[in-house]
């Protein structure tokens, strides 16, 4: 017999000591009575742990949790997938916003270019700037976001108009 088996035999003999440990005299005479008394009193025991609550409420969730506990790799893969999905969602949303912003600024650029290039006496175009609309000390915040502030407004009576750009016409005073 190997030394290890021999030692396990001695270990088992030592573990027999545990079988000789006994609770205080009369303990088992009243244990069942205490249990029944607590059941009748409506005692549900100490506060259930989170795991116990899940096991009681949803066996399926408990089984799923048990799967995660027993297979930590699955938890890692699940978490990584969720993070990737979130990242993709953010990137996709960001790209959508950029696409709209580019088309908005294009409109702004076109209108400002046409406004500055085609300014004439006959049909001067008042070009509004953030400073004229809201002087620096006025406390008024003017957004320069081309989407929110310079998006052309469609009207029923003509071509889309930009609310910050108004065509002004005046007739020189007669002399």
């Amino acid at each position, binding site marked *: 017999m190997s030394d290890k088996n021999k030692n*396990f035999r001695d*270990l088992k003999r030592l573990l027999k000591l545990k079988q000789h440990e006994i609770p205080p005299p009369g303990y088992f005479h009243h244990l069942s009575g205490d249990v029944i008394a607590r059941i009748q009193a409506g005692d*549900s025991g100490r506060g259930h742990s989170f795991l116990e609550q899940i096991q009681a409420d949803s066996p399926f969730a408990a089984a799923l949790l048990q799967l995660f506990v027993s297979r930590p790799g699955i938890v890692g893969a699940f978490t990584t997938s969720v993070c990737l999905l979130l990242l993709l969602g953010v990137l996709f949303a960001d790209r959508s916003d950029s696409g709209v912003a580019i088309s908005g600024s294009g409109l702004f650029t076109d209108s400002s270019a046409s406004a500055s290039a085609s300014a004439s006496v006959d049909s001067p175009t008042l070009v509004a700037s953030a400073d004229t609309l809201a002087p620096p000390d006025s406390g008024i915040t003017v957004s320069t976001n081309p989407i929110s502030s310079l998006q052309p407004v469609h009207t029923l009576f003509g071509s889309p108009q930009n609310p910050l750009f108004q065509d002004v016409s005046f007739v020189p005073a007669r002399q």
Partner: protein
Amino acid sequence: MSEPTTVPDPNAPAGQLEGDLVRRARRGDLVAYDELVKRYQERIYATIYHMTSNHEDANDLAQEAFIKAYSALKSFKGGSSFYTWLYRIAINKTINFLKQRRNKHHISLNDLDFNAEHDPDLVSLISEKTPHRDINLSELQQKLNEALLKLSEPHRMVVVLHDVQGVSHDEIAEIVGCNVGTVRSRLFYARQQLQGFLADYIKS
């Protein structure tokens, strides 16, 4: 409201009697459940005590295990024996309790019975094997429990169930919820660990 209790047939096999007790207990018959508690209280308490090495904690946990089992009786489908199902509840409660304790063990050991000093295995172990021949059984008991508490809960569980309480590998696998191979490997590892912790007391 419980139905009128039926007088159990003393000549009926124990298995049928247990089934009858379980059915009655599920209908709210506390007399039947009291009988079930009395049947299994020693084994359930012993398992919990050997896991915690603390009588007060074992008492609390044993009571709570039985209370929880009563409230969960409706979920007992009969797929396993009532004893296995009850054991599983007690073990889960104990392991959850120990995890919350996070290795802060407070030992409160039970006394040894009179037969311990006359157990031939223990007597020979002390007189022949241990180098510390003047050690007495109480000190050995303390060292043994300290060594058990150094094991992780899953390893301690298989040692307690198999080597202390004599539960078979198959039953342990069913109770703990793993396969027999896992039980055997845990048991081997746990014994190796204990052997190391208790080398001074079992080495020849």
